């Protein structure tokens, strides 16, 4: 998979070109529409700057970030934990499959309203919704990881009389964690998006979802755009950053 420098540069060139073209189209089109409908890139950047300097907006950001993080941690711990157990006991997995399927199939907004009915509207519920919707991914991925642990390695440990505990910590767990890592990465971006969605529909009083609702009410379209770009940057940084950390440290041993 070794890419020549030339390949990397050409790809980067076209990628940047894509961004520039998009920005250009955006700029041109924004000229023919009012800022209420399509704010220009400059207006959006201005709105972003305003958001950065506004303590309220920053608070919204941090609150949402906290919720997303909480959801992600819950999803990772529960997903890995439940996944390992279900992976080892197929009857448990089969038993939980209906719930997993429902969570995957249900429109997120439907689950959101359901949760509102059952548990009310609030910060915790938001985290719960985001977590519940992202959980099946990590869970499913972990179950699959447990199933596909290299049998040959396990046979080797059996022949060499490696103690049970060592087998668990040195063979099983690493294999499972490394296999399900991609899904955790995926879940990271997903929880951000889901948190925002839940915030909007639940109608929380603080958070990015709240800010979006407010912007909509006041027809501050440039603010909506600004938040979208901020969120885009955040998701990219999370996915890119996490990916980098994972590749560099956890997956050192890969070729």
């Amino acid at each position: 998979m070794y890419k020549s420098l030339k390949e990397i540069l050409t790809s980067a060139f076209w990628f940047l070109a894509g961004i520039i073209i998009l920005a250009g189209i955006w700029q041109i089109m924004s000229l023919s529409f009012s800022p209420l409908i399509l704010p220009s890139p400059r207006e959006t950047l201005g709105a972003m700057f305003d958001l950065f300097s506004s303590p309220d907006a920053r608070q919204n950001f941090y609150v949402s970030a906290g919720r997303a993080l909480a959801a992600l941690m819950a999803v990772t711990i529960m997903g890995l934990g439940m996944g390992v157990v279900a992976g080892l006991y197929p009857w448990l997995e089969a038993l939980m499959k209906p719930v997993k399927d429902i969570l995957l199939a249900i429109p997120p907004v439907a689950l959101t309203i359901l949760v509102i009915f059952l548990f009310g509207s609030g910060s915790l519920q938001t985290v719960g919704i985001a977590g519940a919707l992202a959980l099946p991914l990590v869970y499913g991925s972990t179950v699959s990881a447990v199933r596909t642990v290299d049998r040959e390695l396990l046979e080797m440990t059996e022949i060499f009389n490696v103690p049970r505990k060592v087998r668990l910590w040195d063979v099983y767990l690493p294999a499972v964690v490394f296999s399900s890592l991609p899904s955790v990465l995926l879940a990271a971006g997903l929880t951000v998006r889901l948190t925002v969605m839940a915030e909007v529909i639940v109608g929380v009083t603080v958070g990015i979802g709240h800010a979006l609702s407010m912007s909509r009410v006041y027809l501050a379209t440039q603010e909506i755009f600004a938040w979208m770009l901020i969120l885009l940057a955040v998701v990219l940084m999370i996915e890119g950053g996490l990916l980098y950390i994972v590749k560099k440290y956890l997956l050192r041993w890969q070729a």
Partner: protein
Amino acid sequence: MLIFENVTKSFSNRLIVDDLSFKVEDNHILAILGPSGVGKTTILRIAAGTVSPDAGKTQSDRQKIGFIFQEHRLLPWRTALGNIMLVLKGEKKLAPQERRQIGMTMLQKMGLKGFEHYYPAQLSGGMRQRVSIARAFVIEPDLLLMDEPFTGLDLELKASLQKMLLDLLSWHPTTVIYVTHEPRDAVLMADEAIVLAGDPGKITARIKFDCPKEERDQKYIQENTMKLVEQLMTPGV
């Protein structure tokens, strides 16, 4: 001494091995030859204890079994040293530092000084197999099982690994079962060879090599290799 007595084994209603009997003297090397699928690996698995025979018995009160696999079977996420220490973790009498020391020494014996902290992905195929060999010996096994460990290696590498193996065996003699489909390897390394053939697998030939290994010259090797080849091509003659 390792004894197989009237061993029979089937997998999913297919008879793999039927009424097989053989003996391996202590600290002798037995080579098992035969075509693919005849049951050589099954025999190894029975000897290793991961598979139980349907009938017959094996006599082997061996506690420590070393196995050198065809595909190295090293943990990809552990260094060479880490892989060796993994199999030492069962030895409760050893302190961690001792295990580490033993591992380092073993790796150095295999000519891997300086590579102890490399991951398998960073090592060449020959080096990985050396780690695998080191792993099998580091536990000071009572029984060493080898399943075509030199497949896919070039001749030069294979020769050096075989020499290394024989050196290790003179340092720590143990009973060995060596499965291979290369007759020449059997003549080079083993004290006795049996040939399996047929479906289910049965022993069609037993050949002892009484000449000490150091004295086996080209003529001896060629003659006996031909004998084995004949047996493999025309079983039972």
